[in-house]
């Protein structure tokens, strides 16, 4: 019986495969990309487009062209990742993949915005940067020029030819955001309404864009730990863990067992923290502000636990390359058990007015996401599991002790806001059970790798590209690191779950009430720092 790996390699023999972390890597020409991707999707079940990333090889003589576009495809059944590298000269034009995966269009727009690679006229609007900007900021020879006054374009929809004049007259255009009390995000949603019903919508992002990826190129690998915690401040530890794991895996550092356990505990605590934030936002959108304060109380309990351990309330900055900075203080484990007990009782308080309540059910049984839509748009995390797709990186590809602890993955039935609420509630309970299991069997020993005890030791990252991902509270959070062997990364790309999860929003709210849109938006849990980077 030949394995999937061998079968794939025999099929695409002419391209030449070589191994990388959990799959294979190959190259092809720019004109072949669409055909290659179609074969992958239709014949080999690569139904998931993880990420598209672009790299500028400015000043490197050995590369074939100036730019490189890197696709990550995923086969969900076999959990097989395929990385496709395409080298292109400066003025090459690509074929867009948005006919195969809907999520491709926003990723390609970002690449055009950042690197100036053309993907066809549809995707040539700026995404994260303002329209007035000159040049493409992630190019290595980019020189910033002072921006003129940034203008915000008025709402504009293309004319719908299927409507007659009378129908067109009753439609009105409004703005939702960028500063809206319920969206609590810097996202601008433009709506075309017919009475109270949303007929068409589009969104604009980039109001919180801080140039994370450009900034990361000027930092060394250690400094990016501090930077990564600023991506999603509600679950800050997860991003720094994803970054540290990425660097450690590419360098081959084996961290001690006790450090693994401490990292696991803090990941799950961060997950609870982010889920509580999301549940609170859902409550506000649904008109129940009392529950919002219950959620905030739960987060306050976690902040105290973080503060006792690390000295910070929001971002527990204890990750270092090769381990963790501190050991657990004396008495911390007892405090943590106490806090978890309080959170469990807080969950019952949230359960009481919400679960099975007629008002909350009516309010939330809206805006369903079908599983095939979710996969098409590259959605991960509780939103995908709310639609009933069983994909959780903690189960599929367990790291640290996730294969030894017992936990279950809650799956929704209808893919509605209510399912997402239930999935999040159940995930908090499962996280609590994981933390208790890990703390009960906490390994003893060192917390730092022997060679990295001196802080900020120089790392030897091999030349090449590395992609590591992690199941964060919003979905798959991944870092693609392109290294040139120096102490600073050549290029860092964040595969941020919020960026992918937002793309389905216009589909979700089509022909829905305006109030439903707010409930649906809060249930997606979009974090602005992660979305705009």
């Amino acid at each position: 019986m030949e394995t999937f790996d061998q079968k794939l390699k025999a099929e695409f023999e002419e391209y030449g495969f070589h191994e990388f972390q959990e799959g294979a890597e190959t190259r092809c020409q720019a004109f072949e990309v669409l055909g290659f991707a179609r074969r992958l999707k239709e014949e080999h079940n690569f139904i998931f487009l993880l990420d598209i990333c672009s790299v500028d090889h400015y000043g490197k003589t050995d590369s074939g062209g100036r730019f490189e576009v890197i696709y990550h495809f995923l086969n969900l059944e076999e959990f097989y990742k395929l990385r496709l590298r395409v080298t292109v000269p400066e003025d090459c034009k690509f074929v867009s993949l948005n006919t195969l995966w809907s999520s491709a269009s926003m990723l390609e727009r970002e690449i055009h915005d950042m690197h100036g690679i053309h993907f066809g006229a549809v995707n040539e609007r700026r995404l994260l940067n303002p329209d007035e900007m000159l040049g493409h900021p992630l190019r290595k020879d980019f020189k910033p020029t002072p921006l003129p006054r940034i203008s915000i374009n008025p709402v504009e929809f293309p004319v719908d030819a299927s409507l007659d004049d009378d129908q067109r007259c009753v439609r009105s255009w409004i703005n939702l955001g960028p500063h809206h009390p319920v969206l609590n995000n810097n996202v601008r949603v433009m709506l075309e309404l017919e009475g109270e019903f949303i007929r068409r919508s589009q969104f604009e992002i980039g109001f919180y864009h801080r140039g994370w990826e450009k900034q990361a190129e000027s930092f060394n690998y250690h400094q990016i730990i501090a930077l990564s915690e600023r991506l999603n401040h509600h679950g800050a530890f997860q991003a720094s863990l994803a970054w540290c794991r990425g660097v450690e895996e590419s360098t081959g550092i084996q961290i001690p067992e006790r450090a693994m356990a401490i990292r696991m505990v803090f990941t799950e605590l961060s997950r609870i923290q982010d889920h509580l934030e999301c549940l609170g936002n859902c409550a506000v959108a649904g008109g129940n502000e009392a529950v919002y304060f219950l959620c905030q109380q739960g987060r306050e309990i976690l902040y105290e636990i973080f503060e006792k351990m690390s000295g910070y309330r929001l971002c527990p900055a204890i990750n270092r390359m090769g381990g963790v900075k501190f050991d657990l203080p004396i008495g911390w484990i007892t405090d943590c058990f106490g806090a978890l007990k309080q959170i469990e009782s807080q969950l019952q308080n949230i359960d009481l007015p919400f679960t099975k309540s007629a008002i909350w059910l009516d309010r939330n049984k809206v805006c369903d996401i079908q599983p095939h839509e979710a996969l098409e748009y590259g959605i991960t995390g509780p939103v995908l599991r709310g639609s009933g797709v069983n994909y959780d990186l903690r189960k599929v590809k367990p790291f640290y002790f996730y294969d030894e602890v017992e936990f279950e993955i809650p799956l929704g039935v209808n893919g509605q806001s209510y399912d997402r609420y239930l999935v999040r509630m159940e995930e908090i309970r499962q996280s609590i059970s994981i933390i208790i299991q890990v703390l009960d069997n906490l390994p003893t020993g060192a917390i730092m790798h022997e060679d990295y005890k001196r802080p900020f030791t120089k790392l030897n990252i091999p030349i090449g590209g590395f992609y590591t991902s992690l199941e964060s509270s919003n979905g798959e959070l991944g870092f693609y690191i392109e290294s040139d062997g120096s102490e600073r990364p050549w290029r860092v790309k964040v595969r941020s779950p919020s960026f992918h999860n937002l793309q389905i929003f216009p589909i979700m709210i089509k022909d829905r009430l305006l109030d439903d849109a707010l409930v649906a938006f809060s249930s997606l849990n979009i974090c602005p720092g992660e979305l705009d980077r």
Partner: protein
Amino acid sequence: MILRNEYYKAKSLTLGIARSFYSMSLGVIKRMYGFEKILTINYPKEMYQYGARLNGLPQMILDQKGKSLCTSCGKCADICPTGCLEIKGVEAKEPEVFNLDAGKCIFCSYCVEICEKDALEMGREHILASHVEESLILNLSELKSRGRKRL
């Protein structure tokens, strides 16, 4: 684990009203008779009690004569993610210029960890709001006056 079907069925109206009355009266009784502690604090009068590991603004460690232990190697300025430290001076001597911009500092403690001479430590001061931006930039003499003498 697929979520149980009964989660998706609404409670009956009578049960719902009864449950909400129950939870409301329970909350009132708990608060009135003090079964549940009050979660807020009376902020400016009482302060929150932080743990031993609280990280505030970095402070200098001085020797017995009141001189800084810093040898102007500049490693802390290199590792600082926000670039809030500015150090000028001759190697192996006390620096001539040592500016710490408290407006930029994120209390990440990288400078403390990398210092081989233990010339810096994390203080506990973290409420640093000011009306004047210039007053947030602390120079060498100000840092020395805030510093702690080595035991």
